[in-house]
């Protein structure tokens, strides 16, 4: 199957950064619908930059970037979103002056208004809090809102940037379970960037490890568990939890 026939995302020798500075280099991976890719690495390894580059939020400097058979490297951010990339950034970016419901409606992007009800069915907690403003939500609720808003546009690939950051362990587990169920149910692909190694290894079907912007490992979670050199060197763990 060629890149142009692929139904997922194909990245080859991707180079990107900010203001002429190269942050990630030679990043290569492919992910199909229904697959889950976890990206691991220390702080500053280029995980967030990789996701931001996929969304066109950084300076593209070279490499192949194909999504659903079309070259998206020159597309604007909104065109990539319309093409089927759903993005939940690390900062969540909830509109704090809007209520939960208004946040969801503002994120419809041309989708029918009934999608808001879908969001409530995915996360019933949001329905209970639908009149609360963005800044009146807990971290977990904000994250649910960010994920729901991204899923409402019916993406075929969801990009999650550290969705568990700052969440209590129980809440993080619950949210991750919910995300996994939703992804399995809709059959979409997902790229997860996360600091919690165990979460990534349990969630993903394949793992990419970055070190200083360059991939140092790519394989299955089980293989990575047997690679203490990578776990210690690139992630900073003696062993997984």
């Amino acid at each position, binding site marked *: 199957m060629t890149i142009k026939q692929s139904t997922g995302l194909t990245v080859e020798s991707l180079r990107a950064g900010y203001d002429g500075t190269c942050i990630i280099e030679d990043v290569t991976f492919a992910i199909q619908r229904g697959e889950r890719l976890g990206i691991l690495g220390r702080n500053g390894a280029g995980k967030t930059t990789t996701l931001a580059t996929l*969304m066109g*939020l950084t300076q593209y400097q070279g490499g192949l970037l194909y999504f659903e058979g079309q070259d998206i490297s020159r597309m*604007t*951010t*909104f065109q990539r*979103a*319309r093409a089927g990339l759903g*993005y939940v*950034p690390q900062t969540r*970016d909830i*509109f*704090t*002056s*809007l209520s939960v419901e*208004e946040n969801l*409606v*503002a*994120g*419809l*992007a*041309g989708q029918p*208004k009934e999608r808001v009800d879908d969001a409530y069915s995915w996360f019933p907690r949001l329905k209970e809090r639908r009149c609360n403003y963005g800044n009146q939500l807990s971290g977990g609720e904000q994250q649910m809102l960010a994920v729901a*808003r*991204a899923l409402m*546009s019916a993406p075929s690939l969801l990009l999650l940037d550290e969705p568990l950051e700052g969440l209590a362990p129980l809440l993080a587990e619950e949210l991750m379970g919910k995300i996994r169920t939703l992804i399995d149910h809709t059959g979409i692909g997902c790229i997860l960037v996360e600091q919690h190694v165990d979460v990534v290894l349990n969630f993903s079907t394949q793992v990419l490890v970055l070190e200083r912007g360059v991939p140092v490992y790519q394989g299955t979670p089980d293989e990575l568990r047997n690679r203490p050199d990578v776990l210690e060197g690139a992630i900073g763990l003696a062993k997984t939890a």
Partner: protein
Amino acid sequence: MFESKVVASNAVKRHVKVPLLPEICILVAGVVCFYIFPSNLGFLTEIVVMALFVLSLDLLLGYTGIATLGQAAMFGAGAYCAGLFAMYVHPDPLIGLLVAGIIGAGIALVSGSFMLRTHGLSFIILTIAVAELLFAAANQAQDITGGDNGLYGFAVAPLFGIFEFDFYGRTGFFYSLSILALAFLLMRQLVRSPFGLAAKGLREDQERMRALGYPVYRHLMIIYAIAGSMAGVAGGLSAQTVQVVGLQSLSFTLSAEALVMLILGGTGRLYGALIGTVIFMVVHHMAAALDPSTWMLFIGLLLVTTVLFLPKGLMQLFDIFMAWIKVGRRSE
């Protein structure tokens, strides 16, 4: 026991929603003012027209986060267009108003097509530049616009062929009031719609909206055109009711005053635009009557006091009042 409490709380929460209540309030307030100040209809009409103009600014600044100091460009263009249309094409006020709105939207689309690619200070400077360009053009084209003397000598036909624009300004006042109520209704629908909520999203984070799949530039252009159209209609109303169009309708001062009125009332609230306009115009009117040389001092003091103690504008007083009522209900 628990059930009865729930029922009671639901009863308190249940509101009787009267459709078009805000618009009815605007019309009733206008009628009351008509009877209380029958000899000041010209001034009341001026307030109504300005309120419509400030509403257009609220859509830009309050709802979308587009700070502009050149909204007078669309107001003035609408005013001149309505005057010239009545003079040379057709005297019907409603058709003239429609044309003024189209011209306002057109100016906004043309100027916005390059201005909206910039942000912040660059954008503000460009809005001033566009308004100043139109000001200079109107001043130069004396044969068409009357230059410094203004455009006058055009007559507006009776509204619906029945209501003549009389010397006392009765028709002009109710005509303007009705247009304001209609515009307010449309604005309320707009800001509640997914389109309006997306505008709020743009105000908060344009990058996020792009990532959600919104064509940000196109969305901004549409909003800018809608606001331009409203400003054009306000200008058209001004021309039709006063039947003179002066260069000040394109001036920087008009844009700046509209901004002050909006900040005074509170941005992003719709009602803030109305309240700010009324307070500003009344204080201006009274202070100028007391001492024509120092009226700006009063306005300055009012603005400084409001910004310092009510950073969300005079509408914050309403919020405080509502919070106070809520506390009272809870303690009961």
